[in-house]
């Protein structure tokens, strides 16, 4: 029985390898006429369900839309969480992951990444005047984060004396903070700013903390498909050069948006 299932698994692995060697993802996408993107569905302003249209919208959806338009295909959105995004990409249920995913070297073993499309840094979200300013203040406190995220591992390393409680999504962690069940939420600053902006009284909360970790976001791509990766990288740079990036950024993070965040960063551009 064991032998049989192992042989089956091996056979499946071989057919997959063969399949991957012959057809690139780019051809597949063009042939099917759809780009399937894995995005967050509860992460304003990166990806969330819009109240009026009930559709998933956000900064990362617009980035994927740009890529789909360039390929001349339709965009299909699939919600993922921090824990499901890598398995979904490796098993092929999505073609690209745009889900606030940090480009980490250890993740390179499973998937590939595009160039950085969003700069982020891990911070803390706390109640204003609650006495927590830095990571050091977290000793003996409860900190909320999301399952499968880098923030979860970083904070445990930066402050071994805190208790990390991992939820399925960041908004759940923020809800726990609002109800006083955790003392801080830690993840990337723009996500924290987005969470803060969803509250009815955003001024009650503040994003704080000293340096914990850099969290540059990259688009997750299937392993070892360089044609596809080249296309995505070139498109991102073109997006920046044409000013389209700035337009999308302004829509979600501009001064008039719900979650203003100054753009102090420049994309890596290859000549």
């Amino acid at each position, binding site marked *: 029985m064991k032998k049989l299932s192992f042989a089956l698994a091996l056979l499946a692995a071989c057919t*997959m390898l063969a399949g991957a060697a012959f057809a690139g993802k780019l051809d597949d996408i063009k042939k099917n006429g759809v780009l399937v993107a894995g995005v967050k569905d509860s992460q304003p302003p990166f990806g969330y*369900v819009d109240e009026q249209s009930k559709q998933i919208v956000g900064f990362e959806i617009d980035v994927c839309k740009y890529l789909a338009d360039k390929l001349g295909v339709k965009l299909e959105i699939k919600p993922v969480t921090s824990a499901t995004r890598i398995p979904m990409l490796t098993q*092929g249920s999505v073609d690209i992951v745009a889900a606030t995913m940090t480009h980490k070297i250890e993740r390179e073993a499973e998937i590939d990444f595009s160039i950085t499309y969003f700069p982020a840094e891990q911070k803390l979200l706390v109640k204003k005047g609650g006495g927590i300013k830095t990571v050091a203040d977290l000793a003996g406190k409860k900190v909320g984060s999301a399952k499968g995220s880098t923030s979860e591992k970083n904070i445990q390393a930066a402050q071994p004396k805190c208790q990390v409680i991992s939820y399925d999504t960041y*908004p759940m962690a923020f*809800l726990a903070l609002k109800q006083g069940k955790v003392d801080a939420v830690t993840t990337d600053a723009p996500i924290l700013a987005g969470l803060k902006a969803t509250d009815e009284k955003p001024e009650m909360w503040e994003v704080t903390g000293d340096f914990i970790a850099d969290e540059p976001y990259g688009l997750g791509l299937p392993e070892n498909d360089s044609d596809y990766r080249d296309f995505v990288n070139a498109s991102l740079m073109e997006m920046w050069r044409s000013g389209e990036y700035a337009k999308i950024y302004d829509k979600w993070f501009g001064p008039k948006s719900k979650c203003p965040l100054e753009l102090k960063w420049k994309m890596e551009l290859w000549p």
Partner: protein
Amino acid sequence: MRWDVVWNNIDYFLWGSLNFDTQNMRVTGELGGLALAVVLAALGIFGAFWLGLAAGLMRLSRRAWVKAIAVIYIELVRGTPLLMLIFWFYFLAPIVLGTAVPEFQSTLIAFIVFTGAYVGEIVRAGVTALPKGQMEAARGTGLTHFQAMRLVILPQALRNMIPSFVNQFVSLTKDTSLASIIGVNELTNTATQVNNRTMNAPFEIFITIAALYFLICWVLTATSRRLEKHLARYQARGR
């Protein structure tokens, strides 16, 4: 209290983003919420019925290896949490199968495999509850074992099993909430999405969806109880 949050999203809870565009006369958006939960449960119980029927009858077989397959299947599944089974089909089936299975289909398969094991036990209990003489008499009239099963035993046994099936259907309806964990946009998922966006009415939202589940399950349970009373009159019992 913020019941307005619930009120504003009640359509999303009930049928997801499905919308009828009156200008172009076409349906837009995707089915979700309670409607999708009911679809999942209905398809699930349909598949589980046939799988369970096969498993239950196989478990009664006199051939040792046929019986062994059924016993292993039923006991393995009944000893595993449904959530684990969902993870298996979702994260790990692709490694074995070689292709990705979309989340709706993969949870549906997990539900069928899971519920099938319980239905198998219901079928086995239903068939063994019939007096032995029924089978002997049927065989005595010249029917084969298979014919006797199909024409004499099952029609009686299945009718007696209807209340248990309905109970299993209720369980499955509740279990569809687990599909939200891997992102199927059924009722519980719509609730967490709205809760994550609004974050000011968790009490109201979760009470509302609990009430929605309750409504469906309670109607089913009530039906099952009436059936039980009704069917008890026809039951042929042994001993």
